[in-house]
């Protein structure tokens, strides 16, 4: 790695003031498992001039229940969330998503805030030494559109950018299904509204703004949530497709459902068609299958990623079935 200025921040305000001074030339580092790889590969068109370490800020690592919500600090390690009895009890989708992300070592290092803000994994974008100056780097074209696109978006590109790179987070769909909010250094917004495709960015965060906490509403009693993931390897792997669901039922019929897929679109993809289909229906094989069919009805796969349509459909089905009150734990 080439050198850079380094700051161990003590408070959120200090981070903001350093970021203001440097603008886009500084990066925030928490777990570092995504950023350091990017810097070692000289991936970015502009190498960061400064890194601001936020691990040195005390009090941003916690899991607690408070006034009917679950509060999680942005610096809480994925492994701690996965192992937390409180999360495992009522917030199954989040516990399972954090348990299935990355590898054990990376979960001990990586934070929830970092997992949500991680960068895309498109192999053109990630090619060392900025070999492919693609749209997401401010360049002229998307190399995946007519190239090797077997892990790219099946629901089209971002209209403005034409970028087909999927969002790779495992925890994002779980947080969206659980209707979580994210708190930043200056505002609170729904996790669903956090994502935006921009040059060099995956979120709406400004260059002097950092994520500080998450707030997950405690699900009502007759509500179950689930997370399923399809990946080529069981560990150290990004999802081909993952899906999280939260379903409330009464008298055997669904009263409310939230289903979110990820790794199928440039942002986490709310499967609203499955949610609409399941409303008022009992959760069973046939309905879950039909809900999956509805979701992928408007898929527009590229040359090499048609197989992902089938996987997305099955992931929706399995996530819904895992929310049955008597459901056995979901496989994959």
């Amino acid at each position, binding site marked *: 790695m080439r*050198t850079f200025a380094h700051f*161990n921040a003590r408070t959120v305000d200090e981070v903001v003031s350093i970021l203001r001074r440097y603008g886009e030339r500084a990066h925030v580092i928490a777990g570092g498992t995504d950023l350091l790889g990017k810097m070692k590969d000289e991936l970015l068109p502009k190498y960061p001039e400064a890194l601001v370490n936020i691990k040195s800020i005390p009090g941003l690592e916690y899991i607690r229940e408070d006034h009917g919500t679950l509060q999680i600090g942005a610096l809480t390690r994925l492994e701690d969330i996965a192992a937390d009895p409180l999360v495992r009890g009522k917030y199954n989708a989040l516990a399972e998503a954090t348990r299935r992300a990355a590898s054990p070592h990376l979960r001990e290092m990586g934070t929830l805030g970092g997992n949500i803000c991680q960068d895309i994994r498109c192999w053109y974008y990630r090619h060392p030494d900025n070999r492919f100056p693609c749209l997401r780097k401010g360049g002229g074209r998307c190399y995946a559109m007519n190239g090797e696109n077997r892990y790219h978006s099946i629901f089209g590109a971002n209209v403005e950018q034409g970028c087909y790179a999927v969002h790779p987070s495992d925890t994002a769909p779980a947080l969206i299904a659980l209707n979580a909010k994210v708190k930043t250094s200056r505002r609170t917004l729904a996790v669903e509204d956090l994502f935006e495709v921009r040059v060099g960015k995956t979120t709406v965060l400004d260059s002097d703004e950092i994520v500080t906490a998450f707030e997950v509403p405690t699900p009502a009693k007759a509500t179950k949530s689930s997370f399923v993931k399809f990946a080529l390897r069981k560990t150290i792997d990004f999802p081909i497709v993952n899906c999280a669901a939260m379903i409330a039922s009464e008298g055997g019929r669904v009263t409310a459902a939230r289903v979110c897929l990820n790794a199928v679109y440039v942002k986490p993809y709310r499967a609203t068609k499955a949610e609409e289909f399941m409303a008022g229906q009992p959760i069973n094989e046939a309905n879950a299958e039909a809900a999956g069919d509805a979701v992928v009805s408007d898929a527009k796969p590229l040359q090499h990623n048609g197989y992902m349509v089938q996987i997305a459909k099955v992931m929706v089905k399995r996530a819904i079935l895992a929310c049955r009150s008597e459901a056995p734990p979901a496989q994959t």
Partner: protein
Amino acid sequence: MKEGSKATPLNLCPYCTAAFDTFEELKTHVVSVHKTEPLPKPAGWIALTVNGQVHELKVEPEWTLYQVIHDRLGLMGVKMFCDRGACGSCTVIMDGRPILACMSLAIECDGKHIQTAEGIAEAKHPLVESYIKHHTMQCGYCTPGFITTAKALLDRNPDPTVEEVMEALGGNLCRCGTYPQHPKAVLEAAQTLREEGSK
């Protein structure tokens, strides 16, 4: 990352700007002349407790923990293979967590307690014997990473199941394919530990 390419930074006294070759000399000067203690730590100075021994050293912002432990402290049990956080060869135990030294910046590890494969061997941990007994290696390059990860698991969970062992070791790659042997070795070490503990 090139060492030696930079001149040794001068250690300037913050009170009278006198220059010293080493940080130790500067510390002695400030304590004796200016009568102040403790001295504020200059940027880039970190203290690491590695296998129980305290090391104070100056690091550059871009040095990874791997570089410091392997290249500066000379502990060769920390291995470099992928350098991207994907193989587990550089695993060390930092404050009880098995983490990857290649993806940690040394400058962010000030005050941390670190244990490496050397420390585990020195402490005569039964994992080492059971790894030899079960022939859990061929070329042996990945072995220190596996043992360090397994040690972190046994510290937290003294009686793991086969599935838990496999899950915990999921982030360690072995190109020789010794995977089936690892759960056997770890479970036997766990049993030895429990027997030792009950004595």
